[in-house]
């Protein structure tokens, strides 16, 4: 499932120093749970994103472990403190070893 995976992230472009901002992330992924069966009754093997992390200038904000009970196209909303200008880095880890990354800059005024 390395194809068609598109991460989308919403982060404010600017913030005050030390401000707490809300971040929303969404990534397109079918999150096959390993519970479903195909037309012949065979179990469709599990294929999910099992970990999501967000870092700001190398410091961790949140690190989420995902299980098959997370819905298709995993969505997360959380809050982060922005001490200075810098860059958020978001990383998703797939069961198949793929790693999806995206980053967003935030300027402190």
């Amino acid at each position, binding site marked *: 499932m390395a194809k068609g995976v598109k991460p989308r992230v919403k982060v404010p472009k600017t913030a005050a120093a030390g401000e707490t901002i809300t971040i929303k992330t969404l990534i397109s992924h079918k999150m096959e*749970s390993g519970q479903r069966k195909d037309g012949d009754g065979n179990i469709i093997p599990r294929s999910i994103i099992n970990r999501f992390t967000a870092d700001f200038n190398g410091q*961790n904000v*949140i690190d989420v472990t995902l299980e098959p009970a997370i819905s298709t196209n*995993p969505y997360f909303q959380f*809050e982060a403190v922005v001490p200075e200008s810098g860059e958020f880095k978001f990383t998703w880890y797939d069961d198949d070893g793929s790693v999806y990354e995206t980053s967003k800059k935030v300027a402190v005024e």
Partner: protein
Amino acid sequence: MSEVSRRTVLSLGSATLAITALAGVPAFASLTDDSIAAFTGGADVVDGGVELTAPEIAENGNTVPIEVSAPGAVAIIVLASGNPNPGVATFNFGPLSGSRSGSTRIRLAKTQDVVAVAKMEDGTFHKASANVKVTIGGCGG
């Protein structure tokens, strides 16, 4: 996880579900208790101190929006007691985390209790649960 062990876990899960359904006990299959124990290391879990927001009725069990928040938490684990596999997600909060909260969307197989257990900075554990009525289950099959 290997194919065999997953199958074993799954069969265990459905067995527990069947027993729970027969006995008419709404909550806490043993698998959920096991998951909580694995998270807490056997420590006492106090009710309250965690906020778990979930809809009372979810029409579609495939995407149920939930939100957890616990001031002063270092980690929050979310469990769905009525799913074949109770684990849902574990939120670990880093040094730059704002309010210790997170929202996501989860799958629920049937009407059940969703449980959130938070590990606090002082090492204590807090718990909250919410009952969600599911109209259409979300585990495929």
